[in-house]
C-alpha cells in the first residue's frame, strides 16, 4: 500500500473536524474523495500535505510510519497537492512557472540558464504526455492549460501521490476530458496514486477506481467506483433524510397570480446558453449550483455588473442599459457573496453602509442629504435587524461576521427594493445570526419583495425557498417546487454534468 492514514483526528479550537478517519491509496490508483462542504475532505488532505503539525493518528508511506509536520516533509516524500486556486505567476512563461523555485543556475552566480530551464520544463511536460506552449505567459492561457501547467509543476519532482482539489470546477467539457486522460495515463504509466476531490458525482463515478465518502468529519464508506450511482452517492453524502420543514404558504405571500417582481428573458453572458427566470412579488426563489456553476456571474449580470444580452424587467419595467446604479434605482439590489471583499466599506460606519444604496434614491434632493434622515434610517435598521452593538457610528470592520452580514442585508432592505438578490446571505455566520437573517429575509418577502437566494447550504435553500432553480455549467438546468425535492435529489440534480442528465 502506497499510503495508509489511520484514525486521523484534528480539532480546531475545541471543535473536532476529523473524527478518526481511515484512508488508503494504492500506487497507480485514482481514489475519489467526496463529501459535502465541511465534511472534512480538505482538512484530511491538508494533514497529508503537512499543513497541520498537531494532528493525531498514524500516516504510513510504503508501510513506513512518517510524521508530516511541515509541507516540506510531505514534498520530500513525493506528496504534491494542487489546490483549487492556482498558484501560478501570471506574467512568467509556462516553462518558467513549471521551474519556479528550482531554476537551473547559469555559469555566473545569480543568473538563470534559460535555455536549460526551457528544455527541462518541456521534457517534464512531455513525460506526462502534456503539450503546452512553453514560451507563452500563463496569463494568456485558458483555464484548462493553466491547470495542466499546475499539474506539470506539481509532478516535476518525483511525485508518488498527487492530490487534486476540485480540478474541474472551472473547466470546459473538452478540457475536462483531456485532464481525465492525463490522470489515467499518469496513474497507469507512472504508477502515481491520485486523490481526486470533486462535487461532480457522475464524473467521479466514471473516473475513480475507488470512492471514499465523508460526512461530518468521518468516513461513511469506501467502495469501488463502479458500484455507485449518482443517486446512491447523493444519499450517502447527505445522510439520513430530513424532511424539509414546510412553512405556512401565506408566510411567503406568494399566492399564484401575484404580480411579477422580476422577469428575465434570454439573459446570456458571453454567448452562454440564455437564461429565463421569473420571480413573483413575495416569492423566495432558491438558486442552487456547485462552485463554478455560474450563479454569482448570473447575479452580477442581473444588476448589470457583468455584461449580458437579453431582457430584465423589474416590477414590470424593462431595464435599459443595465448597470448597478440603474438597477438600484429600478429597485433591483444585490448583496454580494464576500462581504469583506465586495460587500461592505469596512472603514466606514454602520450608518454609512446602511444608507449607501438608499441615499441617492430616498434621502436626498439634488445631491443634498435631508438633515437627520440618514441617522433615522440607520437607527431604524439597527433596531429592526438587532445589530450589535446598536451604535450607528461603529466602524463596520470591527463588527462580528453575523452583524456585518446584517448590515449588508439592511443596506439592501433600506433601499425599498422590488427584487433582492442575496448571494450567500449567511456564509460564515453563527446559528443565532443565521436564524435572525432568515426571519428578515422572510419579512422582506412578506412586505412584497421578490427574492433570489444563492446558497451552498442546501438546508438553507430548502428551508427558505418557495421554489428552487438549479444551475449547472452556466445554464439553468432545472426548476423545482419545494415539495418535489429532498436534499439528496437536489444534490443529485446539482451534481450532474449538463447533457448527461
Amino acid at each position, binding site marked *: 500500500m502506497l499510503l495508509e492514514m489511520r484514525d486521523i483526528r484534528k480539532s480546531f479550537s475545541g471543535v473536532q473536524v476529523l473524527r478518526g478517519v481511515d484512508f488508503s491509496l494504492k500506487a497507480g490508483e485514482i481514489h475519489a474523495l467526496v463529501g459535502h462542504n465541511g465534511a472534512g475532505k480538505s482538512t484530511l488532505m491538508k494533514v497529508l500535505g503537512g499543513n497541520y503539525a498537531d494532528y493525531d493518528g498514524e500516516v504510513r508511506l510504503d508501510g513506513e510510519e512518517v510524521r508530516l509536520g511541515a509541507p516540506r516533509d510531505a514534498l520530500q516524500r513525493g506528496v504534491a497537492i494542487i489546490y483549487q486556486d492556482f498558484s501560478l505567476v501570471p506574467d512568467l512563461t509556462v516553462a518558467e512557472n513549471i521551474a519556479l523555485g528550482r531554476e537551473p543556475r547559469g555559469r555566473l552566480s545569480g543568473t538563470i540558464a534559460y535555455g536549460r530551464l526551457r528544455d527541462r520544463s518541456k521534457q517534464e511536460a512531455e513525460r506526462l504526455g502534456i503539450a503546452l506552449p512553453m514560451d507563452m505567459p500563463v496569463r494568456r492561457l485558458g483555464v484548462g492549460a493553466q491547470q495542466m501547467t499546475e499539474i506539470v509543476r506539481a509532478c516535476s519532482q518525483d511525485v508518488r501521490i498527487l492530490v487534486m482539489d476540485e480540478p474541474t470546477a472551472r473547466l470546459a467539457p473538452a478540457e475536462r476530458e483531456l485532464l481525465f486522460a492525463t490522470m489515467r495515463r499518469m496513474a497507469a504509466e507512472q504508477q502515481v496514486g491520485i486523490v481526486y476531490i470533486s462535487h461532480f458525482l457522475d464524473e467521479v463515478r466514471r473516473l475513480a477506481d475507488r470512492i471514499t465518502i465523508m460526512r461530518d468529519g468521518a468516513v461513511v464508506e469506501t467502495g469501488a467506483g463502479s458500484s455507485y450511482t449518482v443517486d446512491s452517492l447523493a444519499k450517502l453524502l447527505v445522510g439520513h433524510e430530513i424532511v424539509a420543514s414546510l412553512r405556512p404558504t401565506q408566510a411567503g405571500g406568494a399566492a399564484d397570480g401575484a404580480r411579477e417582481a422580476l422577469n428575465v428573458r434570454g439573459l446570456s453572458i458571453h454567448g452562454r446558453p440564455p437564461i429565463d427566470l421569473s420571480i413573483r412579488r413575495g416569492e423566495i426563489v432558491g438558486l442552487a449550483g456547485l462552485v463554478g456553476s455560474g450563479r454569482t456571474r448570473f447575479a*452580477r449580470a442581473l*444588476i448589470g*455588473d457583468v455584461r449580458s444580452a437579453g431582457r430584465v424587467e423589474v416590477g414590470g419595467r424593462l431595464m435599459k442599459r443595465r448597470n*448597478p*446604479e440603474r*438597477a*438600484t*434605482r429600478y429597485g433591483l*439590489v*444585490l448583496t*454580494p457573496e464576500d462581504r469583506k*471583499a*465586495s*460587500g*461592505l*466599506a*469596512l*472603514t*466606514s460606519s454602520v450608518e*454609512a*453602509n446602511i*444608507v*449607501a*444604496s438608499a*441615499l*441617492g434614491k430616498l434621502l*436626498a434632493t439634488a*445631491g*443634498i*442629504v435631508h*438633515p437627520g434622515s*440618514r441617522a433615522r434610517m440607520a437607527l431604524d435598521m439597527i433596531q429592526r435587524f438587532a445589530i450589535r452593538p446598536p451604535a450607528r457610528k461603529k466602524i463596520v470592520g*470591527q463588527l462580528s461576521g453575523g452583524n456585518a452580514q446584517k448590515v449588508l442585508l439592511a*443596506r439592501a432592505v433600506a*433601499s425599498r427594493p422590488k427584487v433582492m438578490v442575496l448571494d450567500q446571505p449567511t456564509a460564515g455566520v453563527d446559528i443565532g445570526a443565521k436564524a435572525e437573517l432568515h426571519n428578515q429575509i422572510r419579512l422582506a418577502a412578506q412586505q412584497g419583495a421578490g427574492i433570489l437566494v444563492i446558497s451552498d447550504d442546501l438546508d438553507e435553500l430548502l428551508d427558505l425557498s418557495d421554489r428552487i432553480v438549479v444551475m449547472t455549467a452556466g445554464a439553468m438546468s432545472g426548476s423545482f417546487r419545494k415539495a418535489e425535492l429532498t436534499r439528496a435529489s437536489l444534490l443529485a440534480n446539482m451534481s450532474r454534468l449538463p447533457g448527461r442528465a
Partner: protein
Amino acid sequence: MTPVDGDSAAIRREKAAWRWASLSTYALAIIFVLLLIGFCLWVPHFATWANFANVLQRNSIIGIVACGMLLMIVTGGFDLSVGAVGAMSSVVAAALIVQVSMPLGIVAALLLGLAVGVVNGFFIAKIGINPFVTTLATQVLVTGFLFVGTAAQPVYGVPESFTVLGLGRIGPIPIPTIIFAAVATVTWAILRFTTLGHYIYIVGGNKTAARLAGINVDRVILTTYALGGLFAAIAGVVLLGQTNIGQPASAADWPLTAIAAVVVGGVPLSGGVGQVWSAVLGTLLLGVIANALNLIGVSPFWQPAVTGAVILVAVGLDSYQRKQRELR
C-alpha cells in the same frame, strides 16, 4: 477558554482599542496645542499677532490645495498636478488681467483648473490609469504647455490693486486665510451634507462594494479630481495676489507639501477615512514649525529636512499603533 470568557475578553479588547482610537484622534490636536504653548514660551517674537497673521497668510495657499487633496486621498488617490495647475492658473489669470479684465482672468483661471481636474478624473476613473501615473503625466503636460505659452518668461503688469487678494486683510485676518476658511468650510459641507461626500467615503473604503451597492463610482472619483483642480486654481489666483507676477516655474512643491499636510493630519493614503480638520491642522502644524525654526534663526535650508522628520514621526506613530492593534 470558554466562549463566555472569549466574549468578554473580546469586548474588553474592543473597548481598549476604542479608547486608543479616540486618543489618537485627538493626539494631533493635543500635540499642536502643546507645540504652540512651547513656542509661545520659548521662541522670541512668536507670540505676536503679527507673526500669527504672517503664518496664516503664508500657509493658507497650501491649506486650500490640501482641502482638495484630502478629497482625493479619501477616495484612495491623490493629485501630483496641483502645482502645475496652480502655476497655470496664476499665469493665465495674470495674462488675462493685463490684457482683458480682472473678472475674466479669475474666472478663466478657475475654469481651466477645473478642466484639468476633469481630465485627471476622466483618465483615472473611466480609462483606469492609476492616479500616480495620470497626475504625473498631466503635471508634466500642463507645465510643458505653460513654458511653451510663456516662453518661460514671467507675466508682469498685474495692477498693484490685485495684491489685496494675497496680502490684504479684513480686520486683523489675512484675506488668503478667509479664502482658505471658505474652501475648508465648503469641503466640510460637501463631506457632511451631500450624497457626494457620503459616497466619497464608501468609494474610498471599498470600490467594488460601492459599485455593487449602486453607487456611480466613476462619477464620484471624477468629481473629486475636478474639485481638486478647482481648489488648486483658486490657490493659484491667491498666489498671484501675493507675488503680482504670473510665474510659470512657481508652485512646484505644492503637491508633495499638500499631501504631507493631509498625511501629517492623520489621514491614511489607503483611503476611506479623513476629515477636513486633519488637512487644516496638518497644514498649520507644518507651517508653525517652519515659522518657529525661522524665528530661532535656523537656516531655511533645514526646513525640508524637518518637514520630512515630522512626517515620519507623526505618520509612524499612527501607523505603528494601527499595526499593533491589528496584531492583537
